[in-house]
């Protein structure tokens, strides 16, 4: 367990998110760096040892304010989902219809992450809560690397 700057390697793909995070949400930076290196990384409390998500300045169970970062498997189960047919803003129109999933990661803390499903090029898949899901790391035109999800 070590500090937030310990995620090794260069910032592979500094998209606009990473640049803005340095000012607006520095606590997310190690996650974004790990994504650029095709790894899923989450904060672990340096005192109680529990993983938490999303990153917060203090550990919600124990109140401690120091975290290390731990790589976790990009696997989980489907917790909930929606298929969006009407774009909620013009910047999302090119995506519709798109599926957004909430995935419970395969870690004891049952962290849940939200992400878009990787497009299949076909009509949206039949999904069921509890379906096994797997992460993939997709570089966007913006240069950001997003974690997208697919049924395993």
């Amino acid at each position, binding site marked *: 367990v070590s500090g937030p700057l310990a995620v090794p390697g260069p910032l592979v793909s500094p998209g606009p998110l990473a640049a*803005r995070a340095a000012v607006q*949400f520095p606590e997310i930076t190690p996650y974004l760096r790990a994504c650029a290196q095709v790894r899923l990384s989450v904060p672990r409390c340096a005192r109680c040892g529990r993983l938490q998500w999303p990153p917060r300045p203090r550990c919600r169970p124990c109140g401690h304010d120091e975290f290390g970062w731990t790589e976790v498997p990009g696997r989980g189960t489907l917790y*909930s989902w929606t*298929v969006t*047919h*009407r774009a*909620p803003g013009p910047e999302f129109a090119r995506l519709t219809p798109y599926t957004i999933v909430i995935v419970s990661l395969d870690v004891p803390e049952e962290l849940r*992450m*939200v992400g878009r499903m990787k497009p299949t090029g076909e009509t949206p898949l039949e999904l069921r809560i509890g379906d096994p899901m797997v992460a993939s790391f997709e570089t966007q035109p913006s240069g950001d690397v*997003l974690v997208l999800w697919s049924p395993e």
Partner: protein
Amino acid sequence: MSRPARPVASVLGIGSTPFYRRSGRSVVALAAQAALLALADAGLRVADVDAVVPVGGSVSCDDLVSVLGVPETVFDALPAPGGNSGVSALAVADALLAAGRAEVALVVFARNGRSENRIASRVTDLPGQQFRAFLERPHGWVSPAQWYSMIARRHMAEFGTTKAAMAEVALAARAHAQHNPQAMMFGRELTAGQYDAAPMITEPYQLFDCCLETDGAVALVISHRPRDVSRDVRLLAVRSARPESPDDLTNRRDWFEIGLTAAAKLAFEDAGLGPQDVDTAMIYDCFTFEVLHQLEEAGFCPRGESGRFVLAGAIRLGGVLPVNTHGGLLSEGHLLGLSHVAEAVRQLRHEAGGRQVDGARIAAVTGWGDWGDGSLALLARAGVAA
């Protein structure tokens, strides 16, 4: 029933502009009109106002001082923005009165919510923007319809809740609106076939599962001063609370336990009442499923039973708990649920016309906003002991 130890505030006046698609007027002008109507309804003057609670940041106290001539020394308090603030504003006003900081509180909501400041431009006022900007927006998860659809899906899977139950919420609201000439959907009936055929927005929500967007204003006058014993509506209790992680839905242990779960329990305790005592309920109906969810968490039916409850006719006029007799956000219009409080007052005054709930004595109003903030107000007809 035990009487609360503190003095009980009353809603002395209500005022509302029409519900517009395009008001063609400034937000301040709308606020002033609703405020003056509420004061006239209360039989009070602008000079009597010594507290202003501008709901949800829609308008400022300074605006009202400038445009209405509210006294410059007025006390102001601003509830957080979001859908919970229509009812949490009552809690703020009640606390100011109870603390002796004011005798007459003016609660105002005003917005050009359709022609000018639509939902997509308002979500950035809500908490947890760092999560929204970096973890959610990049994936296209940005609208309340998308957030709450996730809860609806979970409820469907865990309890077998159906689209038919959501349809019943939409159809009941639309049927009620046919008795409300002020409603945006007055004169526009909705059939089950039209509901089913409507475009999908974000599954499971189709068009008629989603509330309207509206220009307009609502105001209330609240005081400890008794005014007219036949029309004053007593605010027996009002409580507001938050879910476990109010800035984030995703990593909450229990997705169904919301602010309302705690607030309702406290409000019923404060009032010495239970859900069975409520004659009519105004439930914050931003989306159809959220009515089902809140019916359960407020205690009107057990968790998981809301589908059966509504499909048995409970929420219709004539049912065991008529809900949103004005048509609600779904069919009257969306003035942030302060319109729900106004409807509860009309019902308890027995001034609701063709949609009057016979002999209504106790009404409940819920608020819901953000990622599960919630509130419950319990109001009583003048002369009803609690």
